[in-house]
């Protein structure tokens, strides 16, 4: 486990100093093997022990309450696998482009940080990795981003995320000081509990901190513009895995410490999340820029996931775990598709597109599968089980909210099918007329995602079995603390 944690860092350092010619192959090879390794870890995961692959070393960060305490719980192991998956796909996507070594270095650095985020069992360590994960993405977004007002966009992105992480730090400090334990080990923290005002503060701080990254409804204004300006790989990183950091953070650092469950905050968050869900979907209905659609679709999807977390139900946690994984896979697929379109046609505006189906039927078939997976259309695609569980948890929390949240399955279908229809159906447009053939490489990569869409849809129980342990733990903890 230590090896898995440290390997990306080593690879990153090597990548930083590699010649630009070789770095592409090198990165793909390593990210691919990391992905395989993570599958091994996933299969090897032992649900009987709560934390797997645990490692503890207290000489790290002494004096701050930090320590090198890592381990994967069941949701963490899934996120770990997802991280490797996303990084693998980022490398795949970068294959056809000319990136310099610093890009690959950043990507691996990011992988290192992300794995750290998902494996940290110490709040300060978590914060360390959290911040570290932000730096490469800043670099990637700014360095390879394009479009007007990149600077403004970037500043907004930075301010949001940085301020957000300060809130996280504040919350942790607050916790440690107020409980007088001074310990940041999650096992120790779980023994203590906050009360009253500090509890509320802790909750709100973490909500803001993680909410920015997720993003929860009113905190999302960085998202559309950043997605738009960032390079495709950056967008993949942002939505594929980085917003999972926020959700995962909520699951690990907020939910277990909700002693009196704070029903008002719970309600407010769920309502906000659902507003975001509907709001994102409504906005996505009419947008012309594919990346904007991806951004608002992300907003919409994660809103539902957030609502699922705050329903505080086993069903919800299971749905959250599943949906986090699946959303990661699907959004990577969607963005990959958008990237291929942009690469092949030179535009990513719906108004310029049309008739890709007649140019590349296989590509459009794969696209359709992934879109179907994303809009949770049929129970045999991977989008459905998670969405089903999430909607169920929200519905069980409050039927009206459940119905509101459920409206996304209509809106989601509406906007993504619009994309499909505009871009793939109809007469071949001017831009599409010289559509470059999609390479076998891309098709294979997309095919694998499509396969995942189907496999996870037909047999979701595999993932649910893994996550059940973590969800059960959270549920038990909440029940224990509430009674």
């Amino acid at each position, binding site marked *: 486990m230590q090896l898995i944690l440290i390997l990306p860092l080593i690879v990153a350092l090597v990548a930083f100093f590699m010649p630009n010619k070789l770095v592409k192959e090198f990165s793909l090879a390593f990210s691919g093997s990391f992905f395989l390794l993570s599958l091994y870890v996933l299969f090897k995961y032992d649900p009987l022990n709560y934390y797997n692959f645990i490692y503890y070393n207290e000489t790290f960060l002494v004096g701050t309450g930090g320590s090198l305490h890592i381990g994967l719980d069941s949701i963490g192991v899934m996120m770990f696998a997802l991280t490797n998956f996303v990084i693998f796909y980022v490398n795949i996507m970068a294959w056809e482009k000319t990136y310099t070594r610093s890009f690959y270095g950043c990507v691996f650095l990011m992988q290192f940080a992300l794995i750290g985020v998902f494996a940290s069992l110490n709040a300060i360590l978590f914060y360390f990795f959290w911040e570290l994960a932000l730096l490469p993405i800043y670099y990637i977004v700014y360095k390879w981003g394009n479009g007007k007002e990149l600077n403004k966009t970037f500043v907004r992105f930075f301010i949001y995320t940085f301020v957000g992480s300060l809130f996280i730090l504040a919350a942790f*400090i607050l916790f440690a000081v107020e409980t007088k334990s001074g310990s940041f080990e999650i096992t120790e923290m779980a023994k203590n509990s906050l009360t009253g005002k500090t509890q509320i503060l802790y909750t709100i701080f973490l909500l803001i901190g993680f909410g920015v990254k997720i993003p929860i409804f009113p905190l999302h204004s960085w998202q559309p513009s950043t997605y738009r300006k960032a390079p495709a790989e950056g967008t993949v990183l942002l939505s594929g895995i980085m917003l999972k950091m926020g959700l995962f953070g909520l699951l690990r650092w907020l939910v277990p410490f909700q002693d009196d469950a704070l029903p008002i905050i719970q309600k407010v968050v769920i309502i906000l999340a659902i507003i975001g869900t509907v709001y994102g979907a409504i906005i996505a209905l009419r947008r012309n820029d594919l990346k904007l659609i991806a951004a608002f679709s992300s907003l919409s999807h994660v809103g539902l996931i957030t609502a699922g977390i705050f329903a505080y139900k086993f069903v919800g946690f299971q749905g959250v775990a599943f949906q986090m994984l699946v959303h990661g896979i699907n959004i990577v697929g969607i963005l990959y598709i958008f990237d291929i379109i942009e690469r092949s046609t030179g535009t990513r505006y719906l108004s310029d597109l049309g008739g890709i189906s007649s140019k590349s039927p296989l590509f459009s078939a794969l696209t359709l599968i992934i879109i179907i997976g994303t809009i949770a259309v049929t129970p045999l695609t991977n989008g459905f089980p998670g969405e089903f569980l999430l909607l169920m948890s929200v519905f069980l929390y409050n039927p009206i909210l459940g119905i509101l949240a459920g409206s996304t399955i209509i809106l989601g279908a509406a906007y993504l099918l619009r994309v499909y229809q505009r871009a793939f159906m109809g007469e071949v447009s001017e831009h599409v007329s010289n559509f470059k053939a999609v390479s076998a490489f891309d098709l294979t990569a997309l095919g694998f995602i499509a396969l995942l869409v189907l496999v996870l849809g037909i047999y979701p129980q595999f993932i649910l079995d893994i996550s059940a342990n973590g969800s059960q733990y959270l549920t038990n903890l909440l029940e224990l603390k509430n009674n």
Partner: protein
Amino acid sequence: MLVILILFITGLCTMFASLHPNKALPKYLGILGILIALVTLHLRLGLGLDFPAFFTMFPLTRIMTVIALFLILILFILQRKYEKDYDWSAVYSLMLFSTCGVILLLGQQNLLILFLGIEIMSIPLYVLAASKKTQAASLEAGLKYFILGAFASAFLLFGIALVYGTTGSFVMNEIIHIQNINGVQLPAYFHIGYIFIIIAILFKMAVAPFHFWSPDVYDGSPTVVTTFMTTLVKLGSSVTMYYILVGYFRHQFDNYFKFLLPIICVSFLLGAILGLAQNNVKRMLAYSSISHIGFVLTGIILGIALQDMSLFVFYLLTYTLSSLIVFSILDYIENGNAVFLDHLNGLSKHQPLLAVAFAIGILSMAGIPFTGGFIAKYRVLTGIYQINGWMFAIGLLSSAVAAGYYLKTLNRIFFYENNQENFAIKNIYLVVIMVILSIMILILGTLPELLLQGIHKYFLA
């Protein structure tokens, strides 16, 4: 004591070395002298020159002296490319004299030494600030620093006089003793004196609202002098503040520290907000230093409250280190006398290692994890929270705002295109040293105990 003597003699030597045709001689002499000083510190040579009523080598003094010598050593090692007639020998000797003042402050046991130390530190600085005599900005900086410094000295002296009026002594132990036996029954003018001394030191530390000189002076001075100011002078004045608060007047601390809190808050905010509006990098960093010195001051207060001096030492160490990196690289970039954001453009293209080192320095200032700055800031913030929640919030806010301008510099370095011809100049010493320093910052940020415990063992054994 011996260290001061050695530095003094070295200063004299470097001064006279200008007579020698070899231009590099003063520098090598200076390096040699500093190394000798470090060796004597290591061997703990004293030659029986011990004046407990004036100057004592506490462990703290020893640590700080080593840090100070280390900083000035690096300042000396780095090559610079000012115009030919810049009188390096005088500058080096003045720096060494000023360092003597700093070291005096580090081990002071007496208000007289406090006063003399401040002056020995400051008077060469006035000259150093104006050392680019052909440049109007440099001269103006020197004058401003001088006038305001002298003004502060007046306060300091008046304060000392008033304190003397109560205690009848300048010696730290005796002053403490008097306060001890008289409890709170000290006359009012004692308190005035106390306040005046604090104000004077706050001025030297450039804490808001006594900071007004610092942006102008940092901006106008040659960058090497600015580096000196943000490292050694901060060190000396901060330690002085430590002695004031916890040494001479430790009995007053409980009554008065709450007057410092608003001042610190103002520093936090001013440093952050004013820096945001800057285009001039040195000014920006001057404002950032105001914010940082607020943290240092908080560290001192907390150190007293929580009985943990490492808070403040650690903060100073990381701040001076990162500031050394940043200013040294600015010195390399510098074109003329001012460094504007535009001058940073595209550094990473030409000097990737320097750019990374600069980034690490800046990130450490911004308090990003994995750098020493984070641990330092984090520990201080944790402490503040225990004192006052609102102050904690302001501290965080200032960090957030300040991050905005730190980011600006990084953006310029990494994402902007520019072909400055001086980026092409290779400076292998600079690169190596900067990389070493940035690695030190990273080590401080990840394994602080490794370093701190080493220090602890070395100095207390």
